C-alpha cells in the first residue's frame, strides 16, 4: 500500500512539471513580458521606458531561460523561469500586482472558500442521494418519470440564474438573509446560508440524475435478485444492498473534487462577495494580474492531482476487489 502511494506520488511529479512548463509557455513565451506590460499600462502610457520600468518592478526584466551575464549557477537561477515558474514547486508564488504576497493571500482566503464549498458538497451529496433513491424506489412509475424530467429542467437552468433569482427573491424582496458579505465565527452563519442553499439547489438536477443511473445499474445485478428471492423487503434491498454498493462509484467520484473545494467557486464567491480563492481568481482575471492567475493554475493542478491519488486510494479502500499494483 505504502509503496503504491509512493509510486503515485512520484508519478505526480512529471505531471506537475508539465503543468508548470505549459503555464510558463502560455504566460511568458506566447505572451511576452512586453505584451503584459503594454496591456497593463494601457495604450496611453506605452513608452519603452515605462515598459522597462514595469518589468523591473515585477521582476520580469531577466532573460527567460538562460542568463548569460551571470556567473556559475546564477546563469540558471537568475532567470524568469527559475524565479517565477520553478519557484512554485516550493509554493513560492511571489507578489501580485497589488504588492501583496500571493502565498499569504491563499492561506487567508482558503478558510472562507471552504466555509461555502464544504457544506455545499456535503449537503449536496446527501440531498442528491436522497432524491436519487426516491426515484429508484418509485422506478417505472410516473413519479420517477417526472422526477427525471424535473432533473433535466433544473439542469437546463444556468447557475447564474439560480444565484440571481435567489439573491433577488430571498434577500432583496423578502429580506430573509443578507444579500452578500462574509464574517468569521458563528456570526458569519447568516451569510453562508444563502450561497450554500443556492449551491445545493443548483446541483440537484445533474447530481440526482447521475446517481439515479448508478443505482439503477446496481439494481439490475444478480445479488439484488438474490436478496429479493430471500424475501427481503424492497426498502431493505434498497438501503442495505443497493445503497451500499452504489456508494462505491459515488464516493470515489466525489473524492476527486474534494481537494478542489479549497479553490472555491468563482461565480458564487464573486456574487456573494466572499473573500475566498474563487473571488481572488476572478478579480485577478479581470485585472489581468498574471502572477496570481499563474499561481492559481499551479495550485488548482496540484489539488487536482492530490484528488486523483486520493481517488485511487479510496477505490482500494472501498472495494477490496481492487488490487493495487
Amino acid at each position: 500500500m505504502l509503496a503504491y502511494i509512493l509510486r503515485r506520488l512520484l508519478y505526480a511529479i512529471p505531471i506537475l512539471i508539465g503543468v508548470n512548463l505549459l503555464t510558463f509557455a502560455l504566460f511568458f513565451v506566447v505572451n511576452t513580458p512586453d505584451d503584459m506590460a503594454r496591456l497593463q499600462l494601457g495604450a496611453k502610457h506605452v513608452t519603452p521606458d515605462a515598459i522597462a520600468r514595469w518589468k523591473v518592478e515585477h521582476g520580469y526584466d531577466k532573460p527567460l531561460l538562460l542568463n548569460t551575464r551571470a556567473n556559475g549557477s546564477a546563469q540558471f537561477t537568475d532567470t524568469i523561469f527559475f524565479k517565477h515558474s520553478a519557484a512554485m514547486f516550493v509554493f513560492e508564488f511571489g507578489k501580485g500586482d497589488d504588492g501583496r504576497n500571493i502565498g499569504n493571500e491563499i492561506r487567508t482566503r482558503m478558510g472562507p472558500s471552504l466555509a461555502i464549498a464544504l457544506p455545499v458538497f456535503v449537503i449536496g451529496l446527501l440531498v442528491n442521494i436522497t432524491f436519487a433513491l426516491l426515484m429508484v424506489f418509485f422506478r417505472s412509475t410516473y413519479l420517477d418519470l417526472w422526477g427525471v424530467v424535473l432533473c433535466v429542467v433544473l439542469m437546463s437552468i444556468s447557475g447564474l440564474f439560480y444565484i440571481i433569482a435567489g439573491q433577488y427573491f430571498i434577500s432583496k424582496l423578502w429580506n430573509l438573509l443578507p444579500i452578500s458579505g462574509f464574517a468569521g465565527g458563528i456570526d458569519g452563519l447568516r451569510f453562508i446560508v444563502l450561497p450554500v442553499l443556492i449551491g445545493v439547489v443548483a446541483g440537484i438536477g445533474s447530481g440526482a440524475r447521475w446517481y439515479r443511473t448508478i443505482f439503477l445499474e446496481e439494481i439490475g445485478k444478480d445479488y439484488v435478485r438474490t436478496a429479493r428471492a430471500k424475501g427481503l423487503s424492497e426498502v431493505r434491498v434498497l438501503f442495505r444492498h443497493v445503497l451500499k454498493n452504489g456508494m462505491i462509484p459515488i464516493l470515489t467520484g466525489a473524492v476527486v473534487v474534494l481537494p478542489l473545494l479549497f479553490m472555491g467557486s468563482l461565480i458564487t464567491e464573486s456574487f456573494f462577495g466572499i473573500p475566498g480563492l474563487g473571488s481572488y481568481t476572478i478579480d485577478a482575471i479581470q485585472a489581468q494580474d498574471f502572477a496570481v492567475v499563474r499561481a492559481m493554475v499551479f495550485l488548482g493542478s496540484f489539488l487536482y492531482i492530490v484528488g486523483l491519488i486520493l481517488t485511487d486510494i479510496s477505490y482500494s479502500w472501498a472495494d477490496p476487489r481492487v488490487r493495487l499494483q
Partner: protein
Amino acid sequence: MNTAWLNFDPVLLWTDALILTLLAGVLVLVWFIRRHEHLRAPWRSVAQRPMAMGSALVLSVFVIIGLLDSLHYREKLPDSLADAPHYSVDVLSVFDAMVGDLRTQQEKTYSEPLAMQLYAKEFVQRDGVAVREYPRLKFGGSHLRHASERVPDITRRSLIGLAQGLAVSLLLFGLLAAWQARRTQNSFGEWFMLWGEGRLDWPGRTVAVIVTLLLMMGGLLIHLAAAYHVFGTDKVGQDVLYISLKSIRTGLVIGTLTTLVTLPLAIGLGIAAGYFRGWIDDVIQYVYTVLNSIPGVLLIAAAVLIVQVYVESNPDLFDTAARRADIRLLALCLIMGVTSWTGLARLLRGESLKLRTLDYVEAARAFGVSHTRIISRHIFPNVFHLVLIAIVLDFSGLVLAEAVLSYVGVGVDPSMHSWGNMINGSRLELAREPVVWWQLGAAFTFMFTLVLAANLFADGVRDAFDPRQGGRQ
C-alpha cells in the same frame, strides 16, 4: 472574385465558414446513414420518441435562425461609384435583413416590454412649460393616439397572431394528413383515428402540438413586434427581442464548433492510445492528465488574454469590428475544445482497449491488414455511437458555459450579442430602482428553451444508441 455588380459585398467570417463546413458534413453524414440500414435503425428509434422529436423541432427553429444569421454581407453605400464601390462598415446577416426594422428601431433608453413610453421620467416641453413625465417612444406603440388604446391594440394583435399561427398549422396538418393517408392507403378518417390514438409509427400528437405551439408563438411575435418592443429595450434603447435572437447564433457556434475542435483530438488520440498501447498510450495519457489538471476557466482566461493581445497588436488583420469579435469567438471555441477533449478521449481509449482484443480485430491483424485500415474499418465504427452521444450531451453544457465565461470576462467579445453578455449587463439593472428585469428574463427564456430542448434530445439519442440502455425496461 469580382463582386462589383452586386449591391452588397458578401462577408465570410471564420465561424461562418466553419459552420457551413459543419452543415455540409452533417448533410453528407445524413446521406450516408440513409443508405445503411444498421445506421438508420437507431435514428428511427429516436424519431419514435415523443420527447426527442418535440425537442428536435424546437432545436430546428434555433438552428434555422442561427444559420440565417451566419450568412453575412455588407451593404453598398448609396453614394458610391459603380466601378469603385464603397461598402458600409456594418456587417449584416440575412437574418438582419429579414427582421428589418427590429434592428434599426432604436429608442433612447430602457422601456418596458410592450410599452409605449420610456421607463424613466424626463423633462418635456409642453405648451412652453417644462413638465416631468414619461416621454413617448419613437417606435414602440407610436401608432397609438392615447394610452387607453394600448391594451385593446395588444389584445387584438395577439389574437390575430395566434389565429394566423393556428390557421397555418391546421393547413399544414391537413396537407400532412392527406399525404400520409394516401401513402398508407388509408382513408382520411382512418388515418385521423390512428393519429388520435397515438398508433402511428411516429409521435404524431406530440409533433402536431409542438408545431402548432411554435407557429402560434411565431404569429404572436411577428404581429406584436411589428408595433412594439416585445421584450422591451435595453440601456441604449436596442430591442431586447432582437438581441436575444442574435444571441442564438453565438450559443450555437459555441456549442457546435467547440465539439468540432474536440472531435479530431479526442478520436485520434483516444483510439491511438487504446489501440497501440505502449509508449504512445503513456504519452497521450500524460498529455491529457496535464491538460485535465489545469482548471479549465483559468486556461481559457489565459488563452483569451493572449488572443486579445494578438488582436490589439495586429489591427490591420481585422478590418471590421465583426471580424475582431469573430476571431475572439473562434479562439474561445478552439481553447474550450482543447480543454474539453480529454473526457471523450479517455472513454474512447477504454473502449479501444477492449475492442482490440476481440477476435475479428485479431483476425484482421493476422491477415496483415494495416493499422489505419483496422482502425477505420473495425475500431472507429464500433466507437462511433460514443462519439455521437458525447456530441449531443456536451452541447448544452457548452451553451451554459458561455454565460459563465462571459460573466468572468473571458467569454465572447463584449460587443457581440450573447446571452452571457445579456446576463452580465442585467446585474446592474436588477440593482436599479425600479428594477429592469426584462433583459434577464429574455436571456433566461431563450437560453432555457435551447438548453432544455438540447438536453431532452440528447437523452433520446443516448437511449437509442447506448447498447447498455437497450435491455432495460
